[in-house]
């Protein structure tokens, strides 16, 4: 466990966490580490803010047995995960500064070596299934009112295991289970539509009996509303979040190569300057 004191108190809520501020933190982590996966780490920021905002993060920070669970199935969104967790006071900001560096606990894929992380991921098509098990376990333990939120990618859902998990969640009517799909329409090397065209994506999930919502994935309020609607229903849900890979980093938006490329000093400065135009630094 990190010995540093938390920067924010755990009761910080979604409306207090600015996606632009999180983006700034995450870009700093990626730049310092020379790390890749910028595109996805930018597309999921609002989804991350909405997910952590929808649960009692103090229970996550204290590892309470009846905590809601958040599992990041697309594990390469590690920087966004850790950055968001820092803004919610689950881990200290000082820890995020070690991201991807020698001796750190913060690998380039989500790791349960980091306090507050439920499950290590990286290989795709794993986290969602574990999340389904968590949802079932919470229900069996009498905590079926706790949420299990999992974030997966629109490329990741090409893995067959994803559909095994969704079939089972649907059959079991695990209404505390919600999968948020980062529909940034780019997978590893090209557009998902060119690889496996799943459009219209919501219909695929609806066909599995899931409670499907489609929202602007950069609208925290819309994502939060969808989470609340699914929670109030009697079926597990999927929120198709339409996003932009590389969101708010103008030279990276929609560019598949930013799955692999890392920021040099000039590009990092350009990215920060653009974020400053969206929201002044505090």
């Amino acid at each position, binding site marked *: 466990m990190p010995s540093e004191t938390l920067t924010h108190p755990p009761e910080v809520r979604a409306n207090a966490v600015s996606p632009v501020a999180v983006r700034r933190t995450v870009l700093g982590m990626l730049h310092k580490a020379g790390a890749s996966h910028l595109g996805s780490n930018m597309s999921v920021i609002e989804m991350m803010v909405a997910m952590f905002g929808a649960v009692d993060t103090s229970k996550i920070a204290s590892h309470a047995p009846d905590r809601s*669970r958040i599992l990041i199935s697309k594990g390469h969104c590690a920087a966004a995960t850790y950055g968001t967790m820092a803004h919610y006071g689950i881990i200290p900001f000082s820890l995020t500064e070690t991201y991807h560096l020698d001796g750190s606990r913060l690998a380039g894929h989500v790791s349960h070596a980091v306090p507050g992380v439920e499950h*290590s991921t990286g290989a795709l098509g794993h986290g969602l299934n574990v999340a389904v098990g968590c949802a*079932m376990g919470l229900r*069996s*333990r009498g905590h079926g009112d706790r949420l299990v939120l999992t974030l997966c990618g629109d490329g990741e859902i090409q893995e067959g*295991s994803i559909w095994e998990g969704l*079939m*089972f969640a649907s059959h079991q009517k695990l209404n505390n289970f919600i999968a948020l799909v980062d529909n940034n329409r780019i997978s590893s090397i090209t557009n998902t539509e060119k690889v496996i065209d799943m459009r219209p994506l919501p219909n695929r999930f609806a066909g599995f009996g899931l409670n499907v919502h489609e929202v602007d994935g950069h609208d925290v309020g819309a994502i939060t509303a969808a989470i609340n609607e699914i929670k109030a229903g009697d079926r597990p849900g999927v929120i198709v979040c339409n996003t932009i890979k590389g969101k708010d980093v103008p030279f990276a938006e929609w560019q598949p190569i930013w799955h692999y490329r890392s920021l040099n000093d000039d590009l990092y400065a350009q990215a920060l300057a653009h974020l400053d135009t969206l929201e002044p630094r505090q």
Partner: protein
Amino acid sequence: MRGQIIDAIYERMAANPDIFFVTADMGINLIEKFEETYPDRFANVGIAEQNMVGVSAGLANLGYRPFAYTISNFAIHRCFEQIRNEIGIHGYPITLLGTSTGYDNAPLGPTHHIIDEWGALKGIPGIDIYCPSSVIYAGALIDKILSAGRPAYVRIPKGEFKTPDSTDDFVKLPGASSDVLLVSYGTPAQTCLQAQEKDPRLSVLVVNKLRPLDDEAIAAALAPHDQIYVVEDHFPSSGLYGSLCEVIAGHPIKGRLRSLAPRDYTLDVGTSPAFFHQKYGIDLAGLTRAMA
């Protein structure tokens, strides 16, 4: 053996609220009682073994002790990455229960010949591997697993073998001579015991826990013998033969180690395990021939 293991889990569920039984739609006329008695601690994930392991990991996240049940080849090969990541990396105390071993499913063809699965699992650290060779060991196994609190795989042979009468992880049945030692587990262990009945000079070492091995104790059991035959219904390089090679490499063992085992897949059709045991020389005649 399957019955003893299933009954032990079911009985322990009454006092242990953390046990959760998960099946990938296997176990007809056997596992129904779990759902009837403990509906909140039972899940049938369907024909979806990857999900079985993922769901088990999620249950373990909630503090449950999942027992995940299906046929051995599906339990291991189908979801190898899930086992590596969800069980190996996280160390969750999940027990994979694999029914059928070796040529138990003889006429069903090579996809159902289970001759390479625990060796594959051996490549993932931290998972205990058991193959009960008698109903006596099978009956004691679940308590061993529950108290160990570690990830485990149980390879369950078909059959109700009454010997050896021991709950130890390995048991040596010394013969009248120190010349020959037969080392085995599961179904072929019965063949070795039959060989000893015919020729009391033979010694037999039956191994119920395949990993981790107690290297020192195993080395001591091997040490007196000049000829050591490892008889198994599994590929030798990744099987017990390979494990014993590692033991011997680190200890002054004088005996020569030989393997009697299948070494490849086959499309040959045989109606019973005996057909394949004969083909690969792990039947009584094969043992006798090898030792001649």
